[in-house]
């Protein structure tokens, strides 16, 4: 099993959700986060005083999937989250050791 973690632009969330839904991925966790990569931040000016804003708002999506699905999910996120402009985000894929569904006690791929 793999854990796919993607940092995306907040405005792309709905497209990503739809793309994953059509791949039969039916669960995800979304968190509002702040950060920067190559995009850096931006500056804001109030009455002539300039403030650099280094951390920009992004969304972090976490999805646990079967090994076989991992590449398709990564590609789907890439296609649906991409705008082509700087700041589109990144996708990280980790090995996932163990999963338990709390309600039933199922484990492994049955719990995904």
């Amino acid at each position, binding site marked *: 099993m793999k854990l796919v973690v993607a940092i995306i632009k907040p405005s792309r969330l709905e497209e990503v959700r739809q793309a994953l839904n059509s791949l039969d991925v039916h669960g995800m966790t979304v968190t509002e986060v702040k950060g920067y990569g190559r995009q850096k931040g931006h500056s*804001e*000016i*109030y*009455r*002539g*005083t300039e*403030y*650099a*804003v280094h951390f920009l708002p992004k969304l972090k999506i976490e999805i646990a999937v079967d090994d076989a699905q991992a590449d398709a999910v990564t590609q789907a996120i890439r296609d649906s989250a991409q705008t082509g402009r700087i700041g589109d985000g990144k996708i990280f894929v980790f090995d996932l050791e163990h999963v338990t569904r709390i309600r039933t006690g199922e484990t492994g791929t049955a719990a995904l």
Partner: protein
Amino acid sequence: MTPTRTTKLLGIASLAALAALALAVPALAQDASTAAAPAVAAAAPAAAAAAPAAPASPLNSGDTAWMLTSMALVLMMTIPGLGLFYGGMVRKKNVLATVMQSFAITCVVTVLWYLIGYSIAFTNDDPSKPGTFIGSFAHIMLAGIGVNSVNPLAGTIPEYVFSAFQMTFAIITPALICGAFAERMKFSALLIFMTLWLLFVYAPIAHWVWGGGFLGGLGVLGIAGGTVVHINAGVAGLVCALVLGKRKGFGSTNMAPHNLVLTFIGAGLLWVGWFGFNAGSAVAANGLAGAAMMNTQVATAAAGLAWMFTEWAVVKKPSVLGILSGAVAGLVAVTPASGFVNPTGAFIIGIVAGIGCYYAAAHLKKMLGYDDSLDAFGVHGIGGIIGALLTGVFADPAINSLGQNHSIITQIEGIVVTIVWTAVVSWIILMITKLLVGLRPSESEEEEGLDISQHGESVAE
């Protein structure tokens, strides 16, 4: 709550309701008898006409109605107007402390005004010896003022209305100063400073210009308080910013406004309320009030645009805070002029104020290196000085015959006297306050935010 306690409370409540009913019955009967009275009077018109005429009341109901309205409009400028205008510009950890300042000052000044402020600022009991420097002490706690009394300064409205209207000016002036020391003054220090400031700075200056004192006698023009309110508050703010020093982290940490929508609402309330301030300063429902209204509207719009376009040219973005700040600068600058100039004068004053205050807030402040956090001096001090000077330039006798002998020299005299008095006395009051309770919270309290450290509250995430 225990059941027995609930029953007890219910019992008390029903007793109170019964008592209220018992009191209401005779009142209802009284209503019925007064309602019958006009019918009797109408039945005997001839008798009424034959009776000797009562002495004509000097009161004018149109003027009175407008001044009742103006009082409410000017109060709205401070709460919630100024509170929100400033509240939106501070960081989130200080928003409650900032709106609290406007509200607490409203309460403190109201009590002071009733106790002594009105008496020393606006009454003169001995016409042969006009109080040059301070008014009379005879009307402490509004003594001697009744439903029929009239202040000679406002001959057509009840004195209660005049006093309440002037009270709202006394409220907003100290509240304006708060912009200069935002995010870093102890609440206890604020209360002491504002109490002393109202009594020793505002009340005397209001008396000098409006209450029969020596500045009004010199012919200083200023219908609605460009000098008394704005230059006064702006300069006091500058002194506060210099004495208190910069906020912790000024220049290195992000101090961007946390919610400019609050500032937008506040600026809108200030603009609308300002018609009570300027058109109300005619103290009558007449053509002069109408001119003041039109001048106020034109200058405010011109100044909002002037600041916005200047900023657009200089930093490439027309900002929301910019157009709001410009509008307030225009309101400030047109204040003394509103009852003396024509709309073209107001238009020019607006443009000069919008550009001038932009440079004061964005460049002068940086150049001189003080932390006037929300630009109380940059907007009210500079805007007030621009307005007071240009009133002398653009005064149009066709609008107000008092502007016939207008002179920029007289205006400068008024400005200089105000600046010197407010700067010196504000500094002394700050020193007294510092000795009594200290001016600033501890560094860790300031870092934590004044909402939690001063008031034990915070806004929801």
